[in-house]
């Protein structure tokens, strides 16, 4: 009985050692991989300025939203325009 429980504790210790090591090794490799990937991308595949803009537009351009935005922008533009005009008038 005592043996069994000591064994359980030893298994726990083992699990801790292997577990901590595995996590640290895995994340260390990930750090290396990120560094490598960043360098490769930034050096050999830099994102062209225009393509990034396109990408951004693409990302944010669900049709419904964009039409809504367009409308809102129109309204705001009108309002701001008014505001300036008023400034000039006043």
């Amino acid at each position, binding site marked *: 009985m005592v043996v069994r429980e000591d064994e359980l504790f030893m298994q*726990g210790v083992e699990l801790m050692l292997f577990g*901590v090591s*595995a996590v640290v090794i895995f994340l260390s490799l990930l750090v290396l991989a990120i560094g490598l990937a960043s360098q490769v991308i930034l050096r050999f595949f830099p994102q062209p300025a225009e393509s990034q803009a396109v990408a951004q537009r693409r990302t944010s351009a669900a049709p419904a939203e964009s039409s809504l935005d367009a409308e809102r922008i129109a309204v705001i533009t009108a309002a701001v325009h008014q505001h300036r005009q008023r400034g000039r008038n006043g």
Partner: protein
Amino acid sequence: MSNLLRLWDSTGLAHFQPGQVVMILIGLCLLFLAIRKQFEPLLLVPIGFGGVLANIPGAGLAYSAAENALHSADPAVLAEMARLLGQSVASDAEALLQALGMAAAPVQQAAASAAGAAGFSDGMLYTFYTVAIASGVAPLVIFMGVGAMTDFGPLLANPRTLFLGAAAQFGIFATVLGAVGLSTLGLMDFSLADAAAIGIIGGADGPTAIYVASLLAPDLLGPIAVAAYSYMALVPLIQPPIMRALTTQAEREIVMTQLREVSQREKIVFPLMLLILVALLLPAAAPLLGMFCFGNLMKECGVVKRLSDAAQNALINITTIFLGLSVGSKLVADKFLDIETLGIMLLGVVAFAIGTASGVLIAKLMNRFGSHPLNPLIGSAGVSAVPMAARVSNRLGLEANPSNYLLMHAMGPNVAGVIGSAVAAGVMISLVGV
């Protein structure tokens, strides 16, 4: 008159047991904390409510058809079940329930069939649990949604913070040791699998904890989930004293250098790289990290906005409702009110404390070597509990130096902690599972 008796017998009052009263009070208490104190309400409202439902006497919402048949105390049904389970006809319901729990799959199916034929059916919460958790699907779907909501920019801008996410996982493994220690001392009765599942509480990650518990220690899932979400909500109370004790005022004042902008391509490549690393090294973490990376890729690739939105909204919300109720089904009195639950609650807070301390200490250590300054306050964010832990780091940073905004810097270790605990979960599953 027989109808009157039947009506009385069908009320809850006729069957209430003290344990059920206690559990309903605990459920209401969780609801109070969730609603009034805003303790992780998205999970604790369904869990608390599910806990109340599970303990309604006579409703049997958390039990399978066979368990409901055994609870019915109908002599003919009990005799038939005893026969199927190979027990003496004189066995009482208690003994038969135990025998049912340990029966082989075909016997359990036969018992379920017999219960169905006698008019009993699976309780609602039991059905939810089977579909959502026992299948493993709900935690994975939530993890996909979390992936679709996570921005790895801060982590990619400063990959060293991954070490802080690793350090904080030390709390997980120390707690495993604590749990087997309590067993060794004879105070509790946790197996190695139980200990591993309890340790994951220290990962401060709800879906990961539920996923691991459903695989390694389904009986302890209730207390583990409650502990995980409660302590995640208590992060603003648990962490600050530890962080203050382990850092000097000068350290807390350290201002970190502005993070660089990360390109979309780096963000797209990251989940794929993480996935390949998982494939190479830790297949046991593939379901969790695979779904997480999938969600993140959908978000970052920018060409499947419809799917990314579904993962972040409809799908994760619907799944959360059923996940919460399903966890609640594990708060039935006879499974929850146990000395082990106390042990789990105690070990859980220890896990959080150790994780916090490890994160801060490793940050101090790294500060000695790296070229860029590292404020040790962001180390505590490595336990995950996104985004609460990062906000705590930010708050303490501002306390020390009113212009020291650490939030973005703490987001790195914060999301690293999510990866870290999923990796730890994979290690546990592959070493202890099956």
